[in-house]
């Protein structure tokens, strides 16, 4: 597929083609402006490709009507570099919200939210407002929210971009454990250390083109 933000401008993504299997763990790497974030936005249909198609769960999302978008997004948990949490609400409320919009009952929410907050190590911070949590804790809330509805896929755009090395490793380990439960995990990052350490599939983008794709790759090798 191809993607241009404006007519006449250069391609943000050009002739990019790949397949990700169910349950896979993959890194999208590349320098700033390589097209990683554009790719993430295409997956959640925040953007539409200028040309080509993008199939998710076997369905071409480029043809998905706008009103069906919420149902696609309920199957994709999203994790952002800037966390994108409702800062004036508690950790519990942020996770509960994601379940509420999918129509979960109050009973289900009361049961599930403490469970997922426990999985990310926030069992004693349910009622703390997000703005009173550290960066690492906020990203854990983001992860808990992403997995609350047991999505088939998690996509994370620079999930550790704002975190110190120790917290980065914690978050990455959490993502790996989520993947081990069968969830597909796609991570856009330019954190060399993490990519090299995890030895998972690495898809390398440069100036909007896919220039490398390696199983158990290392950032440096692919580069």
């Amino acid at each position, binding site marked *: 597929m191809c993607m241009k933000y404006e007519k006449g401008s250069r391609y943000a993504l050009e002739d990019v083609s790949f397949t990700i299997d169910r349950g896979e763990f993959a890194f999208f790497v590349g320098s700033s402006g390589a097209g990683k974030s554009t790719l993430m936005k295409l997956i959640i249909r*925040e953007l539409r490709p200028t040309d080509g198609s993008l199939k998710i769960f076997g369905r071409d999302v480029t043809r998905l009507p706008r009103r069906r978008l919420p149902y696609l997004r309920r199957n994709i948990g999203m994790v952002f570099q800037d966390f994108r949490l409702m800062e004036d609400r508690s950790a519990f409320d942020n996770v509960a919200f994601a379940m509420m919009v999918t129509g979960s009952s109050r009973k289900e929410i009361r049961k599930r939210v403490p469970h997922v907050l426990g999985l990310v190590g926030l069992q004693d911070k349910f009622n703390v407002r997000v703005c009173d949590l550290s960066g690492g804790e906020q990203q854990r809330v983001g992860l808990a929210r992403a997995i609350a509805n047991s999505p088939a896929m998690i996509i994370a755009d620079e999930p550790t971009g704002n975190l110190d090395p120790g917290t980065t490793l914690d978050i990455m380990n959490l993502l790996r454990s989520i993947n081990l439960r069968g969830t597909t995990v796609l991570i856009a990052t330019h954190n060399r250390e993490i990519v090299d350490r995890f030895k998972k599939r690495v898809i390398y983008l440069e100036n909007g083109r896919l220039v490398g794709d390696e199983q158990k790759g290392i950032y440096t090798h692919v580069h």
Partner: protein
Amino acid sequence: MFISGFFYIIGETVKGLYRNRWMCITSTGVVIVTLLMLGIFMLVNLNISHITDTVKDQVEIVVYIDEFANQQTRDELGRKLSTHQGVEEARYVSSEEHMRRLQRQLGGMLEGYDTNLENPLLASYEVRTVVPEAVMALAEEFETYPGVSAVFYGQGYVENLFAVTGVVQMVGLALMAGLSVTAIFLISHTIKLTVMMRKREISIMKYVGATNWFIRWPFVLEGLLMGFAGAVVPLAGLYYLYQYSVEWVVVNNLVFLNLLPPQTVIIELATYLVPLGTGLGILGSTFSMGRFLKV
């Protein structure tokens, strides 16, 4: 889903109002001030219309009967006038009644004048028209009827009155339309600002898979409540202000200012301001959100 979603929306509305209380208070304040201005102007306009209508209602045509007309002609004239489509009431006034009125008006100045022997006043029909503005045309028509000596309706004065009230009404309508447009502009922009401050929250809702209406409802309800409060508060203020004004007019004996009763005025204002306030609140929040929902 329905029940939990319903409680969620109500809960979110209340929480949203509390969390963004300063912005909501500011928005509601703008609605209150704008609708208060509009309300004051409407009050003045309603009363001006009422006073001019009262004056118009007093306009009547006096059809003087020819002194030489026989009884049959007089009866026929009375029948034609009272059955005329444009006439609300045609009342016969005898020459004796005219004399009694004149005596009352002039007091003792007619003392010693034998009214029974020498009464030069003509009998007449006093005609009230269905539409006050029709007096000129009807007077011209009545002049052609047999048995009519002369027709008066306050020529000159009536034309001026209608011209002035026409201008007052036109200016009033134009100002009210202008103020309504200003109110719509101010209120919708203030609500837009409230929504813009929460665009981050809206985009998060979109990312976690909330449908547009799921996101919209709490905002729509908030807009409704802000608009409703913004209409009811100035209404209550205007009621007390107006009641005080009416009492002041009575106490100071300014009876020529024939003001409308407070209850009537408030009902009239409420039927305009409450739907305007709540409608603007709902539309303001619904349309302001459109841009942020396209994520």
